[in-house]
């Protein structure tokens, strides 16, 4: 094999500017990245393997020898990250492996399982109804992202965790800087610290009064007080849930609305067949794949993926969005087909890190979209898709705003 200088490799994440919110890559980029497993250059300058086929992405994410621990030397970071002190690493199980990961994740799985989410559906419904009333009061026209898409999942996760929603400006700004690949290391460090300090105060307050029926109170009572979990770990877990729990779903609500409004029949179908909304949500998750730039992993052992040997020490990026448009699995993958059987999509990842909040996210999306179509049957976008401002540098793709009218 001839050695290729890293600078000659195509850059990943590829720029999506000017493609509009629904196209993943242009023809030329597709051509450069063609092939099941290709070598790319990351913004840090490091090379990595890009894995794009559905079967290969599943294999990567389920492989026990591929690590999610971004503190390991050689980890394929999508941007440089500040070094973390030991207490700050605690609890963030999204980047832990093996036992360390399962120990913490298992303290939460029951909380977010389908049966329990079904129990909180009335809360989601109330939250949606209140946000719809706010939207009605704000316009027409109004910004759907600001008044509806963002508040709904934020209020719900705040309620579940026991974080005061009144502080949303504080944590939304900071979550966003943590997710933005262009944020400077200093700002990432400062904002992560501020969020941790904020959550630590909440946790400490619960020590004195842990009667509450929220997740933080429950974990203080059942796990911290019993010595199974440290305060640092609980702070890290709460931080992960707070950040992961609202930005993702919010971006899905905004993008989904824009997509459905492109063809009025699709939006109307939400009203006419609300019982099919769950299927529609799966196709929205597949087609929009908001965690667009993929999930990075570091090979700890040699592994063969899609015919390519990945050596121990090399980085791999599992591109969920491209896997979700793999023609081997989805017919006409570039087409949005509301009622295709999309259940095999990988929008929530795969393997032991697969999104713990997926039942919650699904319920929020379904209730929010059906509610929107019911309350605003004449809703339309006040901008054309090519003109909406998109969040291109975020780990979670989405719209900055969406002007709508009715």
């Amino acid at each position, binding site marked *: 094999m001839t050695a290729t200088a890293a600078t000659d490799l195509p850059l990943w994440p590829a720029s999506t500017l000017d493609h509009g919110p629904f196209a993943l890559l242009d023809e030329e980029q597709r051509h450069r990245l063609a092939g099941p497993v290709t070598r790319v250059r990351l913004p840090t300058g490091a090379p990595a393997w890009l894995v794009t086929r559905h079967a290969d992405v599943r294999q990567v994410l*389920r492989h026990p020898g591929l690590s999610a621990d971004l503190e390991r030397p050689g980890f394929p970071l999508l941007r440089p990250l500040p070094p973390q002190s030991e207490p700050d690493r605690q609890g963030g199980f999204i980047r832990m492996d093996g036992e360390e990961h399962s120990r913490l994740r*298992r303290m939460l*799985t029951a909380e*977010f*399982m389908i049966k329990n989410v079904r129990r909180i559906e009335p809360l989601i419904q109330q939250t949606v109804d209140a946000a719809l009333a706010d939207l009605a009061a704000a316009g027409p026209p109004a910004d759907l992202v600001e008044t509806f898409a963002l508040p709904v999942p934020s209020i719900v996760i705040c309620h579940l965790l026991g974080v005061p929603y009144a502080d949303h400006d504080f944590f939304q700004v900071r979550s966003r800087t943590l997710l933005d690949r262009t944020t400077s290391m200093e700002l990432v460090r400062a904002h992560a610290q501020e969020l941790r300090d904020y959550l630590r105060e909440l946790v400490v307050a619960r020590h004195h009064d842990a009667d509450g029926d929220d997740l933080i109170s429950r974990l203080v009572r059942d796990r911290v007080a019993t010595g199974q979990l440290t305060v640092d770990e609980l702070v890290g877990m709460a931080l992960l849930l707070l950040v992961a729990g609202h930005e993702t779903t919010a971006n899905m609500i905004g993008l989904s609305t824009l997509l459905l409004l492109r063809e009025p029949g699709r939006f109307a179908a939400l009203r006419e067949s609300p019982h099919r909304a769950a299927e529609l949500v799966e196709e929205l998750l597949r087609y929009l794949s908001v965690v667009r730039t993929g999930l990075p992993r570091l090979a700890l052992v040699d592994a063969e993926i899609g015919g390519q040997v990945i050596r121990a020490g090399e980085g791999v990026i599992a591109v969920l969005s491209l896997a979700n448009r793999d023609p081997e699995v989805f017919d006409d993958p570039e087409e949005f087909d509301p009622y295709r059987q999309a*259940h*095999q999509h990988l929008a929530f990842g795969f393997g032991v*890190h697969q999104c713990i909040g997926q039942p919650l996210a699904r319920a929020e999306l379904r209730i929010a979209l059906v509610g929107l179509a019911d309350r605003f049957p004449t809703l339309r976008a006040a901008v054309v898709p090519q003109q909406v401002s998109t969040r291109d540098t975020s780990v979670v793709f989405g719209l900055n705003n969406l002007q709508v009218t009715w």
Partner: protein
Amino acid sequence: MSQVGVVRVAVDRGRCCGSGNCVVAAPEVFDQDDTDGLVLLRRPEPPPEAAERVRRAVEVCPAGAIRLTSTTQP
């Protein structure tokens, strides 16, 4: 796969990550434990009409925690 087989299901709670995908795919066969969210097998030998859904559960299980052994009926 033209013969009708009896599908036997086995789950590995050690591997399960509590995603609940199996419960969505085949609720009559899988459940999740109220205390730890991990998989519980309701019916190790699901009825033939559930076989397709059980296969789907295997496909969507992110942790590879569900195994099928199908014994072909005599």
